[in-house]
């Protein structure tokens, strides 16, 4: 099957945009987009200072035009070239890859952070502050090049049971403690605890900052406040514990994933250059250190050696 030149260009564009193949052009695109995003975010922050905004209004506008142009080209290129993604699969079509991109987190971010600018051109009366907020969404474009955000989402997802039970615990204690303090102190301090929702506000402040800013006046109220204070440490400890466990588990999962990949590569006994490049990309994507990789490789080699001596 011969490719037309347009198909070849599209294939190349896909490789560069997706970054799935190690390539100095795709690396360049990555760095360029990342730098532009950072410059954009700094620009939005500086623009909110009235003096800077007045002094450099024209420059900011020109820079925004340039960024929108670049991001628009990026978005269009991605949509166009992602048609390649599943083209050579059995049941794939051009639109499968495109649809996947358009409805992915990054696709939506790319769209939402760029398009409002055009809306402003069509509807000049729109509220500028809302547009600025949409522009801030551009910072999420960076998470494509870093697994930290994905890791966080994956860690929370994997431990969602623990998270939800910690939140449930928080919910129950909020309900019980705030209604208790309302019942005990509500008559003595009606300006602080006029209703259970007001007492809930006190409870949340206590849990978050460690001090609810209210001194109890009754003895039972004092005991209750002391318990709430101690509970606030305990709840913080539980949430921290859940998060740290989730992250440890996430690191382990990554190692397991990498190990599986290495085993798959080694299964036929030969490591081609392509496979090596694939492993390198995977290592970078999972954010694993060279030491970790070395340890995994050693372990697998050891196992292989043992298996060979055992078999013979």
């Amino acid at each position, binding site marked *: 099957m011969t490719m037309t030149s347009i198909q070849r260009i599209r294939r190349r564009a896909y490789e560069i945009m997706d970054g799935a193949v190690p390539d100095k052009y795709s690396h360049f695109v990555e760095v360029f987009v990342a730098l532009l995003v950072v410059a954009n975010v700094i620009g939005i922050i500086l623009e909110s200072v009235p003096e800077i905004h007045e002094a450099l209004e024209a420059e900011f506008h020109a820079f925004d035009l340039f960024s929108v142009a670049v991001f628009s080209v990026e978005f269009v290129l991605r949509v166009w070239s992602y048609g390649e993604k599943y083209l050579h699969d059995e049941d794939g079509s051009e639109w499968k890859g495109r649809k996947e991109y358009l409805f992915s987190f990054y696709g939506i971010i790319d769209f939402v952070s760029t398009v409002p600018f055009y809306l402003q051109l069509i509807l000049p009366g729109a509220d500028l502050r809302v547009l600025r907020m949409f522009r801030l969404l551009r910072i999420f474009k960076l998470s494509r090049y870093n697994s930290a955000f994905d890791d966080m989402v994956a860690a929370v997802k*994997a431990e969602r*049971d*623990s998270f*939800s*039970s*910690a939140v*449930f*615990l928080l*919910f*129950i204690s909020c*309900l*019980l403690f705030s*209604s*208790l303090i*309302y*019942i005990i102190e509500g008559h003595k301090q009606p300006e602080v605890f*006029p*209703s*259970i*929702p007001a007492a*809930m506000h006190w409870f949340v402040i206590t849990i978050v*900052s*460690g*001090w609810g800013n209210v*001194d109890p006046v009754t003895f039972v109220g*004092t005991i209750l*406040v*002391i318990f709430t*204070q*101690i509970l*606030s*440490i*305990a709840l*913080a*400890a*539980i949430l*921290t*514990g*859940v998060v*740290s*466990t989730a992250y*440890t*588990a996430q690191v*382990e*999962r990554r190692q*397991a*994933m990498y*190990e*599986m990949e290495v*085993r798959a590569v080694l299964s036929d006994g030969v490591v081609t250059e392509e496979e090596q490049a694939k492993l390198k990309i995977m290592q970078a994507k999972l954010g694993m250190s060279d030491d970790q990789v070395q340890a995994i490789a050693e372990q697998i080699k050891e*196992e292989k050696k*043992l*298996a060979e001596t*055992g*078999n013979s």
Partner: protein
Amino acid sequence: MTSGFKHTLMEIMDGSPNHAASRWVELAITIVVLVNCSAVILDSVPEIHALYKDFFHELEFWSVMFFTTEYIARVWSLGAKYLKSEGSSWKGRRQYIFSPFGLVDFFATMPYYMHMFFPYLDLRILRVLRLLRILKLSKYNTALQDLFQAVYSERQAFGSAVFLLTIATVVSASLMHFAEGHEQPEFFGTIPHSIYWAIITITSGYGNVEPVTKAGEAIALITGFLGVCMAAIMTGIVASAFSNQVARKKAAFEAQIREIFSDGVVTDEEKETLKRLQAHYRLTDVQVEAMLQRAQNKSGMKG
């Protein structure tokens, strides 16, 4: 025929996956509990209370009917828990009635009737008891039970943390009493008074009273610092409790895998068991895959 129905009802109330109805029962109870708790909270706001008093009253009546039906259904059906040979039908019932969940179910429903017979009881206490209904939900939260188990298994470490907290509180409270008792008698006049200050300072790092003497300032600083240490110790204990629990689960799962691989064949039935265990221990597919491969390699080495 009633015993068959009783058994089915018990399974449904118990949340057994054998019946589709058990999920609906669970959902209905959850919704009624949540609506109830929101009603109690909203009812305490004077403006809302004035407007919707009758509605809240009506809601309370029907919820109590609902919870009473639930309680009776549970008590009656749990008679089928043990066979005649293992004890009378009251054995299962007694077990439920005196379990934490049974007590919560009882005390969350009962106050309404008490109010009917003794109308002069303090309404505020009844309201607290109504909020206890939220605890009914913990029955359906297995992760919460896991959490308590993790904390319970580290109870010795927690005990020593509480001991440290007590010592720190008592020492800094007494020191503060001696340093500032004369300057600010309204806050530090007695040691119990200063204990309140010490606990607030240790737990929040911010005292509700500013010291006025140099010695008092130094003590307040050290107390605040102790608070940071306490938080760190507690966090460390909970985090290690959790990771120990995860390690225990994985070890148990790995032992199961090894057992299954020991005869070299993995039957469909064993695969089913693994799936169930994976859900039970809440392990992800990738983790399980890696463990399986490791086990396979090990068994390959032997052969």
